């Protein structure tokens, strides 16, 4: 195993990966999300959001308050189609 500092468990993104992307112009939270895939995996940002906000704040030399928050959409947890179709199922 190669030593890695994992920031995003879902997409296997390291601290270096995110730093490179931020340096290459993806220094807005939404753009970083889309380019690297951070915050878009099965945990839906539950384990990475604060770390990502702090990284952006440090590298952009701005306060974390100015980084913003992505739209946190449903479902809260990955939910199976069999559950979500509710009573709309037919046989």
């Amino acid at each position: 195993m190669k030593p890695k500092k994992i920031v995003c468990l879902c997409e296997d993104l390291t601290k270096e990966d995110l730093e490179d992307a931020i340096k290459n112009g993806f220094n807005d939270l939404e753009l970083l999300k889309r380019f690297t895939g951070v915050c878009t995996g099965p945990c839906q940002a539950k384990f990475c959001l604060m770390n990502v906000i702090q990284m952006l704040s440090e590298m952009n030399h701005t306060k974390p308050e100015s980084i913003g928050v992505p739209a946190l959409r449903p479902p809260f947890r990955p939910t199976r189609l069999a559950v979500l179709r509710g009573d709309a199922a037919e046989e």
Partner: protein
Amino acid sequence: MKNQRIPDHPYLAFDRGRKTHFIFDGSECEAYENETVGAALVAAGVKTISRSTKYHRPRGFLCFTGRCPNCMAEVNGIPNVRVCREKVSPDMIVRAQNVFPSLRIDLYSVLDRLDFAFPVGFQYKRFIRPRYLWPFVERRIRSVAGIGRLPMQLQVKREKSPKARPVETDIAVVGGGPAGISAAIAAAETGAGVALIDEGNELGGHLRWNTDMEESPNEFAGMRAFQIAKKLADRLVTLQHIRIFAPAIAIGVFSEGILAAETPDGLVEIKPKRYVFATGCTDRLPIFENNDLPGIMTKTSAQILMHIYGVRPGNEAAIYCSSDEGFALASQLLDAKVRVNAIVDKRKGVSQSKTLETLTSQEVPVHFNSRMVRASGRNRLNSIQTSTEGGHGQTITCDTLCVAIGRQAVCELAQQAGCELTYDPRFELVRPIHDDHMKSNAESYVAGEMLGTQPLSMITLEGRLAGLSAALSLDLGDSARLREQADLTSSVFGNRRS
């Protein structure tokens, strides 16, 4: 055969249920019917449960709350099941996903060493010429990507979905921890109709797996956290107009003004006039080298294993912390007969602490002013390297590292209900805004740990204030309640201002 189950705990008893078994990657694994697949696997000494998506690095149980991506496995043909929460059933077949040929020896792990060839965004700069190259590469990417697998056709009869149940109520309380229960009690006492949802089988939230003794001179003095949880829950069920949905996993707050949740009996669609969000936090993942090694877990994970399932998380633990929670956890590990080889504390020191004295007397080394540099081990944790601010390094042997470095608030549902989120530098937390009545927007109130609030007494006060304020906003309650609201505001915010 390894058995990490705690045979006798100083103050906890475990109802494991009858013995049973399931199959994990072809081998039989002993289990008990009240365990989850994850708990049974940890009891059997299993550290690695999956491989990561890109580099196929071994991954272990990190959060034990179904929130991280680490413990996904295929269960009876269903992909991406979080086995930490999946209850065992006889003859269940559990298989690791996305590995070749096996979880233990996954040939794709060579990608971990070839990381230089696949930097983030590599696909945008390559495979442009000649034109046929991208379709060819895309087919290869598709076969390697993806976590679970689905059959083309179902051989078994199609699952029947139960009808969704609509529930109209005055106040929906999301989260059945101390803040949520307090909010529900306060609201119900005014006559409001309350629906409370919580993702646990029992109410109490994080109190359920905590064994800290309450030391403040309040009504819970001398009680352990899980006992407080039970007392609060018992108080709740005696009240009128309360409907409790547990386990109920919130799906979202939708534009129709509905909070939908998944229960074992299907969807429940709650249409409230007001919300109280007391959704708590998730433990954060600290960043250091190899912070994803199997054996590294959150404080919550260790506590759930020990105190809900009666399973030792490992044999030799280290703790990485930045508050007294680390000391409490160390005591809990010792109670479960886990050796604690070190506490690595980021703080410069503490003025006084009873727990610290106890730990020192039990010869648990505490390293202040220290931070994690690296976790080491071939495919599972076997030691950690730390460093002080002065550059002094230490190597500590351990097979388990419990991390308690900060939290992240669970704000999804509050944001969906229209609450504005803000970064709170006091707690390094993104959380909903609120006023002196815990009101976040026209329909929503917030309380508890999700706001960074501690200790327990303050959490319950905030919960009570939020529930009461929500009810008063519906013109429920009387002048006595208004006075109580003013008193609570003063207790909660007066204390903070001074």
